[in-house]
């Protein structure tokens, strides 16, 4: 049937050109008009406006942890003891599944700030609140599938593929940190 389009056997005509040109413009225009529909599903302006959070650290004593919300996700902030810092720094980086020295994961060794979402399938690991299991390495333990994180929140044992993510943050002063 396609041969009937051209009208003249095998010969390309002005009409063929117009059809191809029109179809191309229509296809490009049609595809471009899909973009507003798709982009409307991306985070909206008001959602993006909530993308940073400021935290007052003055009330967090050494050895304590808090959970704050950033972009709707929990962020663990742990005021580490000297022992925890030493453990984190003495681990042999080469043995880790996701090798990364503790120095790269903290700006101030006393404060560990990580996104509290297990890199396996998105559960929130236990270990922030008093009395919760902290796993075999003194950090966090994910109850869903048994991932163990150390005092630098690096994956040490279990199914998770990567360390807990360190969000972008900076210290505005000694006791205030801005995440995001």
């Amino acid at each position: 049937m396609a041969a009937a389009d051209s009208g003249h056997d095998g010969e390309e005509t002005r009409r063929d050109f117009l059809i191809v040109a029109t179809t191309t413009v229509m296809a490009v225009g049609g595809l471009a008009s899909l973009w507003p529909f798709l982009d409307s599903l991306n985070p909206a302006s008001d959602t993006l406006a909530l993308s940073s959070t400021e935290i007052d650290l003055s009330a967090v004593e050494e050895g304590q942890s808090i959970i704050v919300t950033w972009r709707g996700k929990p962020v663990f902030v742990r005021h580490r003891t000297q022992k925890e810092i030493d453990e984190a720094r003495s681990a042999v980086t080469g043995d880790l599944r996701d090798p990364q020295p503790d120095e790269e994961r903290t700006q101030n060794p006393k404060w560990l700030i990580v996104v509290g979402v297990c890199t396996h399938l998105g559960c929130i690991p236990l270990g922030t609140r008093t009395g919760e299991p902290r796993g075999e390495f003194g950090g966090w333990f994910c109850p869903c599938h048994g991932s163990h994180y150390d005092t630098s929140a690096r994956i040490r044992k279990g199914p998770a593929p990567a360390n807990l993510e360190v969000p972008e943050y900076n210290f505005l002063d000694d006791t205030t940190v801005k995440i995001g």
Partner: protein
Amino acid sequence: MSDYQNPIIRWVEYRLPILSFIDHSVGRHYLAPKNLNYWWNFGSLAGIALAIQLATGIVLAMHYVPHGDLAFDSVERIMRDVNYGWLLRYLHANSSALFFFVVYVHIFRGLYYGSYKYPRELLWWLGIIILFVMMATAFMGYVLPWGQMSFWAATVITNLFSAIPIIGGGIVEFLWGGFTVGNPTLNRFYSLHYLLPFVIVGIVFLHLWALHVHRSSNPLGIDVQGPQDMIPFHPYYTYKDLVGLGVFLLVLCGFVFYAPNYMGHPDNYIPANPLQTPPHIVPEWYFLPYYAVLRAVPDKLGGVILMVASIAILFAVPWLDTSRVRSAKFRPIFRQLFWIFAIDCILLGFAGAKPAEGLWLVIGRLATVYYFLHFLVLLPLVGWFERPKPLPESIHQPVLAASAGAAVVPPEDRR
């Protein structure tokens, strides 16, 4: 079928002949009368308008919150914060109005060319049902932004049912889910506003099914006698429809980008207030003629009945029109009456937009009387007394005669 050479397509076709179904519906194997003019574009335009409504509406529903306390703000959030939310909402609002415009042209084309006559009565009926469902859908969609016009439109329209004797009051409370228009009303309207477009899609399929049984009518109003009177739907009418679509989209984009609120009312940007009615409330332009009919009658129940009857009377048109000649082209008197009737409908629209007092009330009443006079008296009588012009013998004969002298090659012989 054997038309397809590709083995994968043949494999599918043998099990589910979907390609040949499409081909026989809107493709090369669906033959349509060869003389359809641009007024026959408006059916496919209505279908495309429905598709635009569905596409934008489904995405808008992902951002809208159907709750009395949150709906207004969620619409403003769509306008300000959601990426391209303003575009989607303006497309939805403006293409709904153009949807009505296109459907009205489609209906008037049917009235002019007698498309409702034997054997297309059910096709016509299905179209009227679509109009009714469309009106319900548009009304409920108008309520969703929960502004002042939304709220009071909901109040006024639902109160129409209170005109029903004895059970009217109960029906209205049933519609509201309370003692006034409120959150339960908004929630059910939202649910129905999402449901009804798909009901329309279903009726559209029946409409098309009925259409394909006896094919489109045509400007001459005489039956096709054979292949010489027809051309394949594709490419002839698909391309003709695309030209009309281009114009439609230009007009739509003109409104969306240059006058997005032209057809709206500023009062709907004021959050719904159950304690204060706006000073002047009018429906959207596409409901104005019915609104004029409603207000023309000094009796509450009578007004409502007449308003419903102004559309429902279309069901009877195939029998009220006693002429066997379909097209107004060959009916000199009917053709004049048609244009007077069209002007009467526009006049009703203007009367509906003005406050119901003074001269406009009188005009509204006279136009209402003429509206029903046209259908109930003039239409049957003209069929009896009018002497139609002679009909051409076939569709292809005048086409060929008109271009006599030029070397005319019938499309089926081209190649």
